[in-house]
């Protein structure tokens, strides 16, 4: 069946978009949650990320993995959101994450306490590091390789390694200074 190239292009855009979203929906949502604390904010960021993916999907050239490309769009969308709203100063720091993390009832109380302490520490840590470091932490926690992180951020791999190393050192040091995790 002959299809007009314009129709074909529209179909492939829709197909690519559908595929991209279906495969990465959770990742996109999770990244938005790393950036924003308020439910409305991260839902808005998620929605806006999807719109940006739609608008930019024509530029996807298979030069990188689809997930890496999506991380770029989502990270930039979230950064734009941070720029736009002066009020959005808190990132991954509000109680929403704490509220949404399930700590199984069956676990011993000490473990519960430890998990809460760990989470509280993580929230505070994320609160005072720079926006860029937060972005790197979110990518790292999403288990992107150094190469992929470099592709997302535009930094060199060595630069990414250095920054991640510093963040690791910083988190380790702060954890040790923070009552050695005893709470």
């Amino acid at each position, binding site marked *: 069946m002959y299809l007009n190239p314009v129709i074909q292009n529209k179909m492939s855009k829709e197909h690519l978009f559908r595929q991209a979203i279906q495969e990465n929906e959770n990742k996109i949502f999770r990244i938005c949650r790393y950036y924003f604390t308020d439910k409305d904010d991260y839902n808005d960021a998620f929605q806006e990320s999807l719109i940006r993916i*739609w608008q930019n999907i024509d530029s996807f050239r298979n030069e990188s993995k689809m997930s890496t490309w999506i991380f770029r769009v989502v990270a*930039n969308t979230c950064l734009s959101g941070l720029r736009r709203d002066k009020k959005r100063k808190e990132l991954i720091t509000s109680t929403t994450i704490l509220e949404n993390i399930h700590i199984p009832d069956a676990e011993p109380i000490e473990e519960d306490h430890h998990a809460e302490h760990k989470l509280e520490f993580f929230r505070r840590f994320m609160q005072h590091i720079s926006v860029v470091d937060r972005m790197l932490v979110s990518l790292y*926690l999403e288990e992107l390789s150094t190469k992929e992180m470099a592709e997302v951020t535009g930094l060199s791999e060595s630069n990414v390694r250095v920054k991640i190393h510093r963040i690791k050192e910083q*988190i380790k040091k702060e954890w040790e200074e923070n009552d050695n995790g005893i709470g």
Partner: protein
Amino acid sequence: MELDDFKNIGNEEIISNTEPTELKPKNMESFIEELKTKDASERKKTLIFIPIFFVFIGVYSASITLYKGGMRTGYALLILGFSLILVYIFWRFRRLKDINYSAPTTIFLRDAERRHMFMTTLDWLITIPLLALLVTGGSFIVYFSFLRYFPGTYVPLLIYLCIMACAIGVGFWASHKDWVKNKGWILTRIRQMKEELGI
């Protein structure tokens, strides 16, 4: 405690307890339809410039035939100046719309910085000749309009130039003030992010 130890906090636990997003297959179709509608609306916004441009050119080109000599030259320069301004506004509008979100963050921030600057070098290079064109066109009209009342004097022209200089000055001051209020802080944050990235 290592950064890797927080992977569970940042990753699995959040996912496993995240409420389902709204974009399930049944909603996907309507979402794509919404996106298409948005695309069409954006295209309309861009295309609306074209009839405005032609109406403007048509009206002024018709009126130019009423004049002769220096007055005609003045109106011709004004038409040319305003036409180029319309093209410039359209170009700026397109530039603001064409944001490549899929670029690496360093490039994205660099482009964002350029977009949010009050005036780039290119903007100055375009704006100054355009204003000069408009002021010259206006000067022709003023000079030849007052020639019959004040023959051989440039006073009306000088007054006009002073008024124009003030108007342009006030215009830039007001738009800069507005930019500082609405966009200046964005530029500051972009530069801060660039600094954090070491670029």
